[in-house]
C-alpha cells in the first residue's frame, strides 16, 4: 500500500445543518464523503482509499454535539462529541462509567482530542472500540436519511445504516440502581493500539449472588456477533460462580466470529477473547 505525504485534491464543503448535509449528498451523489474527526479519514485519503472529489465536513453542523441527560434520564451523546469530552464528563462518569472508561482507554490524548464517537462507530464498525460498551449499555442510535430518521438499537446499526445515512446521536437509557460494569481490552500496546479484541459487560445482580440481567458486547468480532446473546442466556437467572462465568466466556468466544490479521490468528484471538470476557464479567461482579 502506497502512503502519500499529501492529501489528494478535493473540495471541502462546510454545511451548517443536517438538512444542508443531505442536500450536498444529493447534489454530489457518490462523489462526496462525510468527514467527522478526520483521524481515520485523512489516513485513508493519504492511502488513496475511497478518495472522492468532495468532502463534507461535519464539524460546523449544528445539533451533532450534544452531551446531556434529559428529564427521562436518557443520556444523549451527539455523533460529533469528542472522545476526550466523553471521558472527562462528570455526568457520563457518574451514570455510565463504562462509556467514560472505554473512551479514556481509546487511542491517545491526541486521537481523543480529535476523534468523535460517531466517527469511531461509523468508520470503523467492527473494530470500533466504543461499540461493545454502547451495546452493553443498550444504547439506541438515531440515523438520519434524506427522507427522515429512524432510531434503532446500536447492535443493529450495521444492518440499518446505509452509505448515504448520517449517524446523528446515541441515546443511552438510565441504568438500574446498583448495576455493575466491567471492561477489558487486549491491544498490542495498551495505550496506543486499537483493541484486537475486547469485552464490555453490564451486570445486574440480585442479593449480590444471582445474575438478574446481563448484556455483553464484544469487540474485534464481526458485526452481527458483537452482542454475546448466548453467553448472556447462560448467566441469566443463575448463581454467579467462577464456573458459570467460564462457561459464559467460552460461549461468547465461540459465538464471536473473527478473522486472522497481520498480528494474530483467529484461533489465538478467540482464546484471548474468552479471557477478556471472563475478566470483564469478574470485574463487573466485584464492581
Amino acid at each position, binding site marked *: 500500500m502506497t502512503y502519500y505525504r*499529501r492529501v489528494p485534491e478535493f473540495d471541502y464543503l462546510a454545511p451548517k445543518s443536517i438538512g444542508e448535509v443531505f442536500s450536498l449528498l444529493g447534489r454530489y451523489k457518490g462523489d462526496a464523503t462525510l468527514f467527522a474527526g478526520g483521524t481515520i479519514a485523512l489516513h485513508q485519503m*493519504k492511502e488513496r482509499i475511497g478518495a472522492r472529489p468532495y468532502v463534507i465536513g461535519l464539524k460546523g453542523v449544528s445539533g451533532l454535539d450534544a452531551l446531556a441527560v434529559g428529564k427521562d434520564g436518557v443520556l444523549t451523546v451527539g455523533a460529533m462529541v469528542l472522545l476526550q469530552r466523553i471521558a472527562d464528563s462528570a455526568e457520563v462518569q457518574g451514570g455510565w462509567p463504562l462509556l467514560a472508561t472505554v473512551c479514556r482507554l481509546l487511542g491517545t*490524548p491526541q486521537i481523543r482530542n480529535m476523534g468523535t464517537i460517531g466517527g469511531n462507530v461509523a468508520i470503523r464498525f467492527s473494530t470500533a472500540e466504543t461499540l461493545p460498551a454502547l451495546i452493553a449499555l443498550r444504547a439506541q442510535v438515531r440515523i438520519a436519511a434524506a427522507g427522515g430518521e429512524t432510531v434503532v438499537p446500536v447492535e443493529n446499526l450495521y444492518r440499518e445504516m446505509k452509505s448515504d445515512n448520517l449517524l446523528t446521536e446515541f441515546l443511552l437509557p438510565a441504568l438500574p440502581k446498583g448495576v455493575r460494569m466491567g471492561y477489558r481490552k487486549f491491544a498490542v500496546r495498551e495505550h496506543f493500539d486499537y483493541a484486537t479484541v475486547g469485552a464490555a459487560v453490564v451486570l445486574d445482580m440480585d442479593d449480590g449472588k444471582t445474575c438478574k440481567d446481563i448484556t455483553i458486547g464484544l469487540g474485534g468480532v464481526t458485526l452481527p456477533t458483537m452482542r454475546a446473546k448466548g453467553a448472556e442466556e447462560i448467566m441469566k437467572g443463575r448463581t454467579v460462580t467462577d464456573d458459570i462465568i467460564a462457561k459464559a466466556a467460552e460461549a461468547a468466544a465461540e459465538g464471536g466470529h473473527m478473522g486472522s490479521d497481520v498480528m494474530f490468528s483467529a484461533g489465538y484471538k478467540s482464546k484471548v477473547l474468552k479471557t477478556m470476557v471472563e475478566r470483564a464479567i469478574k470485574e463487573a461482579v466485584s464492581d
Partner: protein
Amino acid sequence: MKHDIELKVNGDTVTLQVDSRRTLLEVLREQLGLTGTKEMCNKGDCGGCTVTLDGNAVLSCMMLAVEANGKEVVTIEGLAGEGYRLHPLQKAFVERGAIQCGYCSPGFIMSAKALLDKNPHPNGDQIREAISNNICRCTGYVQIIEAIESAALEMGGAK
C-alpha cells in the same frame, strides 16, 4: 478550492488562504514558516507534529487547516519567553538529556505542555499517558519523563 481562514498562532492573529486539502502541519511549516513542528510518519503514529489547538494536544498532520479556522494554535516556537528565554519544559529537556537528535522533542514538549496546563501535578502514569502518542528512537523515554517531572516542579506544580 481555496478558503480564507483566520488563526491565532502563538499569540498572533494571521489570516491566510488555504487549499481544502492542506493539513494544519503543511500550513504551519510551508505557509507560515514555522518549521519547529516536525513531519515524520505523517499518519498520526509518531506525534512529531503535535501542537495545541485551543489548549488541547492534536496531531497537525491529521487535521485539515480549514478546520482550524478561528482556533488558537500554539507551536514549539510559541513557548520561549522574551529574549529567547526557554520555557521550563524546554530548559528541563536540555538539562536532563531528554534531547538527542531532537527531532521528536517539539512534539513531546507540546504534549507535555498540554498536560501541565490542565494538570500541574501529574503523577508518573499521567505523564506516560500524556506522551503515549509520541515516539522517540534515541533516548528511551526515561529522561523525557524526568524532564517533564522536573519542569512541573519548576512551574510550581510540586506535589
